């Protein structure tokens, strides 16, 4: 299954639908075994912040590179 990809480094003009909102919406829709690839920038949203977010939603976080990680809802 292809992972959904969300790029948190792209900030849209205006106040509609910022990428963090797209991410939390995608997290809520995430089914068991599914994952989201997240592209981030440490000075915009630190990895520790993403770790807290994933923890709060019961997801695992795997860092792939300095600006990429995977959030996964593990099979129970």
């Amino acid at each position, binding site marked *: 299954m292809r992972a959904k990809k969300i790029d948190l480094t792209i900030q849209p003009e205006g*106040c509609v639908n*910022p990428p*963090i*909102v797209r*991410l*939390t919406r995608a997290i809520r829709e995430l089914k068991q075994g599914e994952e989201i690839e997240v592209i981030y920038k440490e*000075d*915009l*949203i*630190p990895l*520790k*912040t993403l*770790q*807290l*977010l994933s923890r*709060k*939603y019961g997801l695992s976080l795997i860092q792939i590179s300095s600006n990429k990680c995977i959030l996964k809802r593990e099979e129970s």
Partner: protein
Amino acid sequence: MIDVETLRKDFPILEREINGQKIVYFDNAASSQKPVQVVERMRDFYYNTYANVHRGVHTLSQEASEQYEEAHAVVASLIGTKKDEIVFTMGTTDSINMLAHGIEPLIGEGDEIITTVMEHHSNYLPWKFLSKRKKAKLKIIDVDEDGRLDYTQLENLVTQRTRIVAVCHMSNVTGFITNVEKVAKIAHETEAYVVVDGAQSVPHLPVNVKKLDIDFMAFSGHKMLGPTGIGVLYGKKDLLKELTPYRYGGGMISRVTLSEVEFQDVPWRLEAGTPNIVQAVGLAEAVKYLKKVGMENIESHEKQLVKKTLTLIQEELKEKIKIVGPLNPQERGGLVTFTVKGLDHHTVASLLDAYGIMVRSGKHCAHPLHERLGLEGTVRASFYLYNTEHEVERFIQALTEIVGTVD
């Protein structure tokens, strides 16, 4: 004093859990939750009384008309006036647009309209475009770094050409409470009309339009326990009579021929068409609820929550969180707006949501104020009568964990 725990039972939504936690609803400046009394009143009206108002001779129409008219009186009593000075609209934005349209013939080229940099767009854009249409001057009063209004500048800006001074009673960003009485005194040294955006004050503070000596005031039902789709334009009766109707149609006239039109008296001449009848009845029930709790009690309860929030942030998170607005709770209403060092406002709000805490992030429809204060965006926690000190503690605990992720 408010018995919050008992009162919370009237708000079933507060029992809802999100992400495994009971919700903390701190987005009251955007819209409030509704007690069962309001929902039941509207349900009962639909089930037992509903009909169109003013046009029917049958029993249901007469009962509906009586209750719709009574709703004007109930709302009027909250702000110290009478029912013929209350026009029902769709909300604050609709009220101010209705006013800006209605007053347009009284504004001439070179006249002046004064507003402030801290306004919600709904009390800025109608005046901006009115001044553009009429080639009037739009003057803007500044605020200081903490969002306090500069009354001296107002004194200097008001001239004999000033027709309107439009200010918010309470900023939806900084929470700053304008001394409206003082504004009215300065404005009324000339023939200017004083227009007050009461969207954030009427739901939270005791307001008496006669004591404040203001000419017009706008506010929304949905921010004060009432339904959406209903709002209020208060106006002194003689001034409401001067307004050109925003809408023409049924219900506003006493006689129409092909050559002549005779209008009804206010407020009906400004309420053309079938109004939001059930919403008006719901708003009246919300007002009764608020009056039963007591506006002074609500104000003092919210001040306590603000004081606790400000104190905890100052004591525990001062290095990471910057409060927007005056730090003295006496100068502000029931909200706390802030920024977090190293984290974007939407990120903070999204993380709080993961804790079940609902706040608002962005520029809160007050772009000029954010620009003035050099802010990209802010997070706003806004309180109401059903919020508790325990919820504030949960909020601070969550914030502590969130800011702890930033080095």
